[in-house]
């Protein structure tokens, strides 16, 4: 189900950019947490329940790695816990590491949702006319990793079928992986060149060439776009006013809980949970129609 993906590409682009902008640049923990949970719920709604555990096995260790790495390199902070080679390892650095972990995982999850929702055709529809070369490069770069994973799976299966993929010991497995990876590098370079040549052969980027697309800007797109811009504006004005300022160094500051700040947290909360609500609504309507049949 991709109820959210049915909106107009321009609206989707504005939405993803505004969430990512706040999630990347505002250091308030409430905003970071709501971006993370909104992104996680959205990603779960887009993914089959069977894959949740597999994804979690990637994000949870990544989170702990980021959280533990920061105190090893950052020694600022008023509460030293112990000293490592003469350098303080501080509570503030740990907390900041956790905050960075929340931010990184949140942004990765949003990018994952982005790549699921904003397919290449939508991206090229938006930017193919204005910046043909750059948008082709961008759309190729964005779909590179999923494609790389798929192809890698194929190559390793083929090698296994030929009996070339030794899996007796860990070191052998590692060596087999390396040879697959080497083949993949050559393949990806060649594939990029071939894609570009094929697009050129189809007359991509030539003046006067028209494109067919099914996207129409309807009333509900207008509603979502204005809600999105309004909520982003409120959040940005609040940030510029310093209402959501939060510091980790040298002493962790207190969270601002004035009515205005709570209102701002709520505004961004709605923004980050919006796609999840849309997905849930779509799923409920679908269930209802199935039940009525």
């Amino acid at each position, binding site marked *: 189900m991709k109820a959210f993906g049915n909106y107009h590409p321009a609206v989707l682009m504005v939405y993803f950019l505004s969430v990512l902008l706040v999630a990347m640049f505002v250091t308030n923990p409430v905003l970071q947490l709501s971006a993370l949970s909104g992104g996680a719920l959205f990603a779960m709604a887009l993914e089959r329940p069977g894959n949740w555990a597999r994804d979690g096995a990637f994000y949870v260790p990544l989170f702990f790695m980021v959280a533990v790495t920061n105190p090893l390199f950052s*020694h600022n902070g*008023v509460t*030293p816990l112990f000293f490592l080679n*003469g*350098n*303080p390892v501080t509570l503030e650095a740990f907390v900041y590491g956790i905050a960075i972990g929340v931010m990184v995982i949140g942004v990765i999850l949003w990018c994952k949702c982005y790549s699921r929702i904003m397919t290449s055709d939508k991206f090229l529809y938006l930017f193919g006319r204005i910046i043909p070369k750059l948008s082709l490069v961008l759309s190729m770069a964005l779909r590179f990793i999923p494609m790389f994973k798929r192809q890698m799976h194929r190559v390793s299966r083929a090698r296994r079928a030929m009996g070339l993929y030794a899996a007796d010991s*860990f*070191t052998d497995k590692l060596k087999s992986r390396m040879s697959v990876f080497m083949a993949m590098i050559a393949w990806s370079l060649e594939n990029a060149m071939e894609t570009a040549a094929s697009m050129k052969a189809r007359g991509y980027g030539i003046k006067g060439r028209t494109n067919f697309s099914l996207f129409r800007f309807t009333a509900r797109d207008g509603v979502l776009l204005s809600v999105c811009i309004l909520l982003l504006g409120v959040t940005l004005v609040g940030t510029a006013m310093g209402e959501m300022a939060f510091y980790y160094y*040298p002493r962790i500051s207190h969270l601002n809980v004035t009515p205005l700040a709570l209102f701002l947290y709520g505004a961004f909360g709605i923004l980050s949970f919006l796609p999840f609500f849309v997905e849930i609504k779509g799923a409920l309507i679908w269930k209802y129609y199935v039940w009525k049949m």
Partner: protein
Amino acid sequence: MVSVKKDVLAICAILLIAAILINGTEIQSVDEYYLTHIDDITPESETVTISIRCDTILDHYGDLDPSLQSEEFVPADGVILPPTEYVLRPGDTVFDILDRAARHERIQLEYQGADENSYGSVYIQGIHYLYEFSCGPLSGWMYRVDGEFPNYGCSKYELKDGQVVEWVYTCDLGKDVGAMWMGGSFN
């Protein structure tokens, strides 16, 4: 069974690297770190005086990082360590005295080791939570010995009896504390 042997070898190599890493790290509790031996000053002992000040921040308070704008981090008189006498041990550099004073007075200190930069000398990044660039792009810590700014790193300057070391925070590449050799203009 060759494959199992290979795995055992790989595990041994990983364990060896981990052992070397763990052996090279020294973990101290907070009290252990600050527990420093300070020699008593006797009439015969050689001494130096050290002070740490950040007066210049008071004139550029608006440029200071908002998270540091508090009496806790910037004292109202700008004095972090008033002139204090320490016994000079043979071969002590400016950095050794600063490190000893900071541990004795429990002042936070962060530095880049002499092996981590191209100058071959320790670089002081922050004292008392005030870091380089905390107060504008031209700010950071500098040191003066007997009123002169030496043009090299603090762990290369060996001190002599009776010298006066001052660590001062600059907000303008040294011009506001009297160091004229940086920034090019001698006005």
